[in-house]
């Protein structure tokens, strides 16, 4: 959820769009897969329900593609992943018609000592990547949002967001 909050905050700072970030309801257990939703719009956002057919997906945990989380994604939608392996290719094959962008969030987090190697904390890195891939906001509001939202290891997290943003930004502008 923190990731959704950071993105909403960054979008607010950018000043163009509105953002409403909604968590999956129910039991949350450390380590268990969780889901969250975010709506972005230039008009006030009225709808406050889950999103059944998202335009875009961000998957923080690279081990989660077994779950059928991709099924609701609209054709033509974009998926931001964190695979760094050839699993990505298998995914692409399995879900044709979607755009996949893969970011080494895990590597960035480990480099910056966010979390432990057994469970690296990738959310700020993935935020940065998402901001760039989905053109949510510029780098500056993003970094301000991270700085305001993360009380511990703040600078490392800001750095993670920056690195991932840059990485994804380049990717987006590079020929596909």
């Amino acid at each position, binding site marked *: *959820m923190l990731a959704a909050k950071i993105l*909403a905050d960054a979008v607010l700072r950018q000043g163009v769009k509105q953002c409403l*970030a909604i968590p999956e309801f129910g039991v949350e257990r450390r380590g268990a897969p969780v889901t969250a939703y975010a709506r972005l719009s230039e008009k006030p*956002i*009225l*709808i406050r329900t889950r999103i059944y057919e998202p335009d875009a997906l961000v998957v923080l945990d690279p081990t989660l593609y077994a779950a059928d989380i991709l099924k609701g994604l609209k054709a033509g939608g974009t998926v931001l992943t964190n695979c760094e392996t050839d699993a990505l290719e298998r995914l692409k094959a399995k879900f044709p018609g979607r755009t996949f962008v893969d970011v080494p969030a895990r590597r960035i987090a480990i480099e910056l000592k966010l979390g432990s190697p057994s469970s690296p904390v990738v959310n700020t890195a993935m935020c940065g990547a998402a901001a760039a891939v989905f053109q949510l906001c510029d780098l500056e509001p993003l970094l301000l949002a991270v700085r305001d939202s993360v009380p511990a290891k703040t600078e490392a997290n800001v750095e993670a967001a920056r690195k991932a943003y840059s990485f994804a930004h380049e990717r987006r502008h590079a020929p596909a």
Partner: protein
Amino acid sequence: MKKVLMGNHAAAVAAALARVQVTVGYPITPQTQVYELLAEMKLNGTLAGEFIAAESEHSVMAAIYGAATAGARTFTATSSQGLAYMHEMLHWVAGARLPVVMVDVNRALGAPWNLGTDQTDSLSQRDTGWIQIYCSTNQEILDSVLMAFKIAERVMIPTMVVLDGFTLSHSYEPVDVPAQDDIDAFLPPFKPELTLDPKRPMTFGALVGPKDYLRLRRRMAADMAEAERAIDEVGREFGERFGRFYGQLDAYRCEDAETVLVTSGAVGSTARAAVDALREQGLAAGNLRMRSFRPFPAQALRAFVRPGMRLAVIDRNYSPGAGGIFAQEIKAALYPRSSASVHGYVAGLGGGDITVELLQEVWRRVHDAAAAEPEPASWVEDAR
């Protein structure tokens, strides 16, 4: 200043801005972040008053009771089982006429366990003597908590500000946070007439006979009537100061609406999207959002309803053996003056999504019904 806040944080921030003097809390999903943020603000000095981390919700409200009688402005937040656990104290504090403000984050009551949003927790407190206000956005949570203090202290009736679990409590959206000075101008310090004070010893709560008891309750009835006015007037004053106006009812595209979706809480927000969609299809749809439930806005509702109007009431709550509670109370309030028809729909219990699609379907069902004759409540769901 605009900040991205989750609904729970909007509530806690509002309490601190209201300069509450005594806050008491206890964790429960999906309210816990109110409690946690208050604890954090207490630590960093943003929350000026006393902060008590009680060992149960019954004690939360008991401590609030003591603090409020001692003359302090008080605040707490809870949800579901926690609200139910303090039920005895809710009656008590209302009878004691203390202007406590409490946030309830809607969540279904067990058995069985369920964490989803459901209004039955707060609505089943409908006879305890608390004012109840339902919010539809995080902004409204913050604003309503601030207004709640002013309303409660004017009529000396405790006030519950209610928000949907997860849908609001855990959602992040931009919220305009007014400046402290502006709030201070809106909400002067709480200065009760009667308090626990050794210099002026008096006893609170002592045994009374039936004659006094009856008159105390009649006084409460009169103050509840006054609260109907207070909710509107304070909402107007708030609007004049901060640009956001509130009242007992909140009507959307109802001027010429033939069939109106009657909603409360966050569904009131989604319902507007449904109304917009229906209007785009050329249908005369409107949305009436019930902001206050206690005192029941009977007068305002009667003024709102036009003959022949159809009300499609969405109840995310259920009173066993009676039906949806909003529908029931609306019928009673309109009896027998109105020729409007009231159609009850129970939906979204235990956190089920009440989607734009579902709301449109319900609207159509009511609008297209052969007769205006209401059936017993229908149970509906978005099957996804």
